[in-house]
């Protein structure tokens, strides 16, 4: 490959080697590992903020209109700590925005994607490091815009994270900032995803064929494709909404639109247009938010079951299937939106079919556990719980995919239950697991396993207490995004259950302190990890912990797939990808 890049600057290398300045090393670093960690820290901080916003929501649902202690001031409630109705919608909107655009997407693609891709394929860095760095720094305008929008007049966006016009077109200034912020996140993800694709296509170590890639990399690859094709549509739609708000165009306003009893002269468009364009991105986006987690879970499961991943190729095909089908199901969010019922029917069939690749993945995970020798480390516990929880979240998706039932459960807490099960109990738990798993590689030290288990135990119990009851709330028709649902006689009996859930939610956020202490404490006091503390096969574990500049201190050459645990060919129960087969062992020494 070195012959391809004919014009590599000769001074480039020197610059890398003498990267001594603090700014160059830690802030505007071109090193994918540093960029990955920057993403990780930023997203953890936003995770905390998103959690606080969730507590605001839960407080209002448990004790409607009661002044909120302490938090009230933090989450921008009115005087006296009471949450005004418009602030409630703001909380909901910003909670979802922060969680999705600032936590889940950047932590998966940004943090783990950046950190792991070059390490796992045997590259020294990304294909275009400069753009990689920019992809992190383009998050900052978004952080500032959306963080700042809390302080503008009228507060942050209040149109729901789906920002449906016409409401969002008439909304206060915060909505413009929201749109711009999301656009910046989009630009950042774009740069990242094209970079990942190029890197994975072109920069794999010799011997690392596509079908020897770890599932994590496959998932990141497919995710990048999803992002690359879906995001531009959201960006275009976002610009159109900005134009509707600022320039008086009428893409999403119908003729004769009125707002706040004022007429709008612009019009001619159609509110449903936004929904189509938005979900064209945001449905693939939900898979962007789960595929990398699935990939990482596959790696962790196989490693601690000490057993090859069951059905590697079907797994790969099913991820690709999810990606392909993911583009033709977006209409399932719009079954009752006024969409043409014929379209609804075809989207329903496609949605049903998308459960199929997920089913294949689920069964293969179970097959991986079957007949293994399971080590219950913290990452493994999170990974198993991912499988268990994803099944719940996925199965509730079937109810909604069935169009007639969706008429009833659309926009109720059944939906809220569904996506928290896939997003929080699924992805976020997988992210916790991945942090415990790759922490030694990131920082060269182990996290405390016992405290990790305590953290897992409490999180697991509490999250089920918070989110499982939402199913039956939804069954009763309890609507989403309602500041005071107890206005309706029908829902008054649900208050005690909501209070229980809220208490659990508060505890859930509270006990995360265990994780925070473990995370930061282990950086300084954790036991030193060797290169391969988990006795794992992955290529990344053959590099030093933490890997230095250029990642590997040897030329990686790959002999097999990443899941050859307990192979009869070797003594140990693992068989690293770089270890030459026995007969060749003499020729090369690692």
């Amino acid at each position, binding site marked *: 490959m070195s012959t391809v*890049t004919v014009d590599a600057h000769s001074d480039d290398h020197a610059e890398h080697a003498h990267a001594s300045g603090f700014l160059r090393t830690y802030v505007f670093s071109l090193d994918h590992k540093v960029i990955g960690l920057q993403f990780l820290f930023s997203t953890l901080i936003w995770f905390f903020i998103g959690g606080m916003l969730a507590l605001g929501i839960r407080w209002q649902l448990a004790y409607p209109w009661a002044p909120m202690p302490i938090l009230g001031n933090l989450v921008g409630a009115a005087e006296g700590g009471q949450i005004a109705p418009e602030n409630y919608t703001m909380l909901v909107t910003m909670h979802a925005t922060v969680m999705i655009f600032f936590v889940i997407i950047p932590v998966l693609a940004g943090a783990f994607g950046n950190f792991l891709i070059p390490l796992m394929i045997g590259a*020294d860095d990304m294909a275009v490091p400069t753009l990689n760095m920019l992809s992190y720094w383009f998050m900052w305008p978004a952080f500032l815009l959306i963080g700042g929008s809390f302080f503008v007049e009228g507060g942050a966006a209040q149109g729901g994270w789906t920002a449906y016009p016409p409401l969002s077109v008439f909304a206060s200034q915060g909505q413009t900032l929201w749109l711009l912020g999301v656009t910046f996140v989009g630009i950042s993800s774009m740069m990242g995803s094209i970079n990942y694709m190029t890197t994975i296509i072109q*920069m794999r170590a010799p011997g690392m064929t596509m079908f020897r890639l770890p599932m994590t990399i496959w998932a990141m690859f497919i995710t990048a494709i999803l992002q690359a094709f879906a995001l531009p549509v959201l960006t275009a739609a976002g610009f159109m909404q900005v134009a509707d708000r600022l320039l008086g165009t009428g893409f999403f306003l119908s003729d004769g639109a009125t707002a706040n009893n004022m007429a709008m002269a612009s019009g001619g468009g159609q509110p449903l247009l936004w929904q189509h364009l938005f979900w064209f991105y945001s449905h693939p986006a939900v898979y962007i938010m789960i595929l990398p987690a699935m990939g990482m879970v596959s790696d962790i499961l196989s490693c601690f079951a000490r057993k090859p991943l069951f059905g590697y190729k079907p797994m790969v095909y099913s991820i690709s299937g999810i990606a392909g089908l993911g583009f033709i199901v977006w209409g399932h969010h719009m079954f009752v939106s006024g969409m043409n019922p014929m379209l609804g029917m075809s989207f329903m069939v496609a949605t049903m079919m998308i459960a199929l690749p997920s089913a294949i993945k689920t069964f293969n995970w179970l097959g991986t556990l079957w007949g293994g020798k399971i080590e219950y480390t913290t990452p493994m516990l999170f990974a198993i719980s991912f499988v268990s929880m994803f099944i719940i979240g996925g199965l509730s998706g079937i109810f909604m995919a069935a169009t007639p039932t969706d008429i009833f459960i659309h926009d109720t807490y059944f939906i809220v239950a569904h996506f928290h099960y896939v997003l929080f109990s699924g992805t976020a738990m997988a992210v916790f697991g991945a942090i415990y798993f790759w922490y030694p590689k990131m920082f060269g030290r182990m996290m405390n396993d016992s405290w990790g288990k305590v953290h897992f135990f409490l999180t697991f119990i509490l999250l089920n207490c918070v989110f499982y009851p939402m199913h039956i709330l939804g069954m009763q028709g309890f609507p989403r995004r309602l500041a005071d649902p107890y206005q309706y006689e029908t829902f008054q009996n649900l208050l005690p259950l909501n209070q229980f859930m809220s208490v659990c939610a508060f505890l859930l956020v509270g006990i995360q302190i265990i994780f925070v202490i473990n995370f930061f404490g282990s950086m300084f006091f954790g036991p030193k990890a060797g290169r391969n503390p988990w006795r794992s096969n992955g290529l990344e574990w053959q590099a030093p912990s933490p890997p230095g500049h250029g990642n590997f201190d040897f030329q990686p050459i790959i002999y097999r797939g990443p899941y050859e645990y307990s192979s009869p060919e070797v003594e140990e129960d693992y068989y690293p990808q770089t270890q030459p087969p026995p007969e060749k062992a003499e020729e090369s020494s690692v």
Partner: protein
Amino acid sequence: MSDSNNHSPMFDYQPALPISNGKTFMWLFLSTEIMFFAALIGTYIVLRFGALSWPSTHDVHLAEIWGAVNTFVLICSSVTVVLALEAAKKNNPSSAKGWMLLTLVLGTVFLGIKMFEYRAKFSHGLYPQSPHSQIYEKPDVYYAQAVRMRLLDLKKSLLEKTERTEAEEERIALIDKISLDWVEPAEKAIRKKPDSPEGRKLLFMLSDKIYPRASIHDHRAGANHAAAAGPTFTLASTAGDSASSAHPVGLNDQHPWLRLPIMIPGGNMWVSTYFLLTGFHALHVIVGLIAFAILLKMTLGPAKAGLIENIGLYWHFVDLVWIFLFPLLYLF
């Protein structure tokens, strides 16, 4: 985006594609661009062909000729980029530079024409919505009112002058005449009996007098104009359209200084989509021009061929988008 960003690799790799990273990157980027413009163009298509009414190019001062010229200019620039690449490959930096410069110039010409076209729109008050927009979608009381206010404004500023020329006196006379003959009867009729057919007809005639271009398109089946118009009323524009291609002339054309509000059914949606599509295309052109300017600073030998090729790919894509925008916006 370009090879120059690449660092020197430390290891051997096994690339899947027989092309450089830069080119892979560019092609992937272009496929995302396809989706971006698909969203924009798709929006335009569905909004336009679902609209009840849509202005014809003449309604909105869109001249096909400029679109065609711009198409030609972009095609030329595509050729010059290709030739620059060939020259660079053959190690002929000065000729490559020449072609590149020509490309830059052509791109600038494109933008110049685009600017000229935009100016023409703006000078007729074709903006999206308020505050500058002069577009009204239908002639109603508010339209008449807006015409009256504009006339009053014009008159006031003319009267403020202490010394008026002959021409200015004539202008005042014209303003008075319009007010008396057209605006007032319409407003009176509609006030006397809100929404009476007579009043609405007078309003319609007022708008037709000012800007007789609100032509009817055949896809406007629901509106059923012709039938409703009957023998008592013929749109100047329909009359003009079928007989000859000569543009019907209204007050605004005869006296450009009037700049009276104009009635264009579907006009707001037209400006929205027109500026959206051409605006984003123009942005892409500008990015391309910046890239060319940067290239021009380098020695364009074979070492830079990869870079030129990648930027060329981008430029061809911009050209491609225009190839589709031209018929969609100008010829349909």
